[in-house]
């Protein structure tokens, strides 16, 4: 059909445009020029011979991976009449809600600034720069006075905003009717039900081997594990992103995980990337931002107190401080409903030439933000690679967990999916919890916003994040949250208050993620 063909042309044009500015393009050009010297390249069939050369030498694979990465990350080009805000978020009322939420955050940050009389940003004096450079690898030993700082917001503040989200065109009568949602989220987004989830997560089925289930000590490794590891090694040898993404849906062997994630996210540590990271480090040394103190405070409050992650405290500073200075993150705001905060150079208020984004990457960290980085420290020890992986994970997935949007992987859809699953398949439990004033979302929200980081044991968390990468979607977080409630349903039916319900669900560190997901999706009698 004409429409599909022109859509395809548009997508191809867009991807070509993006890749033309990339490093890969210049490398391919260089390779093509260099290949002219080879004997098998003949002038009569130049195009075919060069293509053949690219195929054999593996460059075509790299190009395929780059195209696949672009397709996974960037949304399809929208209708030509649609304004850029429409690509960020198609529903007008959600854009408005995100705008007012951002305004609140800015007000909070500004008031912190004026109260503490600390500038948003300042250039460090040379002596301080030298000191920081010396201390770069052990910033955790620093104990600055952070008592006056407070996090800009916590997940529960964000939950209140989501609870109050209303569509003005929706029948929101005061009296309860069939239109009222029984959960906390009151917007009618489309979410999948269990039959659709079964179709979507078909590789998690009962008759398919999984790491996290079929690699336990009781199961002989010849049945599944050995073969799976062998296939994983083959996938890595082929360096094919799409194959890796398909493979990892059944879990990744621990030894191969770091490389597999890098392949799926299309991260290859080139010298330019290391240089870029060093440049960011220089930016950290030269300028001191207020956001740095927020990061320090967050790390001290969350990761440093965690039994699994406190050893990585220094890494977390090295990644997060550089992340705040990275302007390449700004490009993801094209499809993020959020917008980066703006500011003006001192004394030049209102002059567009002196308008800058603050922080340079446009992302203001909230309480628990450092937990997005912490699990990655188990996989990557080289700071620039760790940094690249985190940045890619953030612009693909994590940003959706703290911005208001109608995207199926956005936090609003995840909350609604969780509540709908619970209501449909555990109606008694849902009703009981609602009656005692313990709306289930109030307990599970913090798990989903952090993608369960800090709540599950690390090996289980990494198995969960394998599936996030494999399915390129965060819906599995909502399914897991519902599965956890299903697992502890018996205890939850006996509680009589929100505090008691929280206590039942306080410790998730003993849970095994994959059996829970499998039982909830494929073995629950509906």
């Amino acid at each position, binding site marked *: 059909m004409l429409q599909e063909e022109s859509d395809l042309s548009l997508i191809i044009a867009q991807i070509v*445009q993006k890749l033309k500015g990339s490093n890969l393009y210049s490398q391919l050009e260089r390779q093509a020029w260099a290949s002219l010297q080879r004997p098998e390249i003949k002038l009569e069939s130049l195009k075919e011979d060069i293509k053949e050369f690219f195929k054999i030498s593996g460059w075509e694979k790299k190009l395929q991976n780059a195209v696949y990465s672009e397709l996974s990350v960037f949304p399809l080009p929208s209708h030509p009449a649609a304004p850029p805000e429409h690509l960020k978020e198609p529903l007008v009322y959600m854009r408005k809600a995100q705008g007012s939420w951002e305004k609140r955050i800015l007000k909070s940050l500004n008031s912190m600034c004026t109260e503490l009389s600390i500038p948003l940003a300042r*250039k460090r004096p040379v002596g301080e720069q030298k000191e920081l450079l010396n201390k770069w690898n052990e910033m955790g030993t620093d104990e600055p006075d952070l008592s006056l700082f407070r996090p800009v917001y916590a997940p529960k503040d964000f939950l209140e905003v989501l609870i109050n989200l209303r569509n003005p065109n929706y029948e929101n009568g005061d009296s309860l009717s069939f239109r009222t949602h029984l959960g906390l989220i009151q917007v009618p987004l489309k979410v999948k039900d269990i039959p659709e989830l079964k179709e979507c997560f078909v590789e998690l089925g009962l008759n398919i081997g999984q790491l996290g289930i079929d690699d336990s000590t009781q199961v002989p490794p010849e049945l599944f594990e050995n073969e799976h590891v062998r296939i994983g090694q083959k996938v890595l040898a082929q360096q094919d992103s799409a194959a890796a993404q398909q493979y990892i849906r059944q879990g990744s062997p621990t030894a191969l995980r770091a490389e597999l994630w890098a392949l799926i996210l299309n991260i290859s540590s080139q010298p330019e990337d290391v240089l870029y990271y060093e440049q960011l480090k220089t930016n950290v040394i030269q300028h001191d931002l207020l956001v740095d103190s927020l990061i320090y405070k967050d790390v001290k409050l969350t990761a440093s107190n965690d039994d699994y992650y406190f050893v990585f405290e220094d890494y977390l500073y090295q990644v997060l401080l550089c992340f705040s200075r990275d302007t390449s993150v700004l490009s993801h705001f094209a499809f993020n409903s959020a917008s980066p905060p703006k500011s003006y150079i001192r004394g030049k208020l209102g002059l567009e030439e002196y308008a800058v984004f603050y922080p340079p990457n446009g992302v203001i960290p909230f309480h628990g933000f450092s937990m997005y980085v912490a699990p990655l420290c188990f996989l990557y020890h080289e700071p620039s690679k760790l940094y690249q992986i985190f940045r890619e994970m953030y612009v693909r997935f994590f940003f959706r967990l703290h911005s208001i949007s109608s995207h199926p992987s956005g936090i609003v859809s995840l909350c609604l999916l969780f509540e709908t699953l619970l209501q449909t398949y555990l109606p008694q439990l849902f009703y009981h919890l609602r009656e005692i004033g313990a709306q289930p979302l109030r307990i599970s929200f913090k798990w989903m916003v952090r993608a369960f980081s800090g709540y599950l044991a690390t090996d289980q968390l990494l198995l969960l994040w394998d599936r996030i990468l494999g399915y390129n979607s965060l819906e599995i977080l909502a399914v897991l949250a519902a599965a956890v409630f299903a697992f502890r349903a018996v205890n939850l039916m006996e509680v009589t208050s929100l505090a008691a319900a929280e206590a039942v669900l306080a410790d998730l560190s003993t849970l095994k993620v994959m059996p829970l997901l499998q039982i909830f999706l494929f073995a629950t009698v509906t």
Partner: protein
Amino acid sequence: MSRVLVPCHVKGTVALQVGDVWTSQGRPGVLVIDVTFPCVTPFEGITFKNYYTALLGRLRQENSHTPAKWVTCLWDYCLMPDPHSEEGAQEYVSLFKQQILCDMARISELHLILQQPSPLWLSFTVEELQIYQQGPKSPSMIFPKWLSHPVPCEQPALLHEGLPDPSRVSSEVQQMWALTEMIRASHTSARIGHFDVDGCYDLNLLSYT
């Protein structure tokens, strides 16, 4: 194949209901939008922004042949796959004459019949309605050199075996070039390096606008 906007007069929505009694409790599920053209025009396409309409019923037209008659052009074109949820609720939609069931060479009036069977929404309509007719065939702009003399590794492999119809190929290529131009004009893929202005990053407060 450029498109030219056709001036037209769009009347407000009129609800259809059965009988004369209008109950205030019920909300009409069918609306009609009347679009009249000052003169008879050939129809190329229509673009609009949806606002909670589930189905675009029948675009009807009145030919200016004598006698003028109403013809059904489109039947239950789905805009919202699930009328009770937000999917597709505020999307931009384009319809081309290739998707219309009948000949649209001469129309003087259009009726758009909108249906929204779900009682959840307070109102529904389509906005920013624009009708197009086919513009002048030859573009006034010159082709860039790479298009007429393609470089080996840059030519996309869109052609299949066998000779495709040359006029179709040229129109497709024209379209693709126009789209590329549009994208090139709209955003730059250059990396923004520095966040400071001339080495200075002293900021006062965050701006609310």
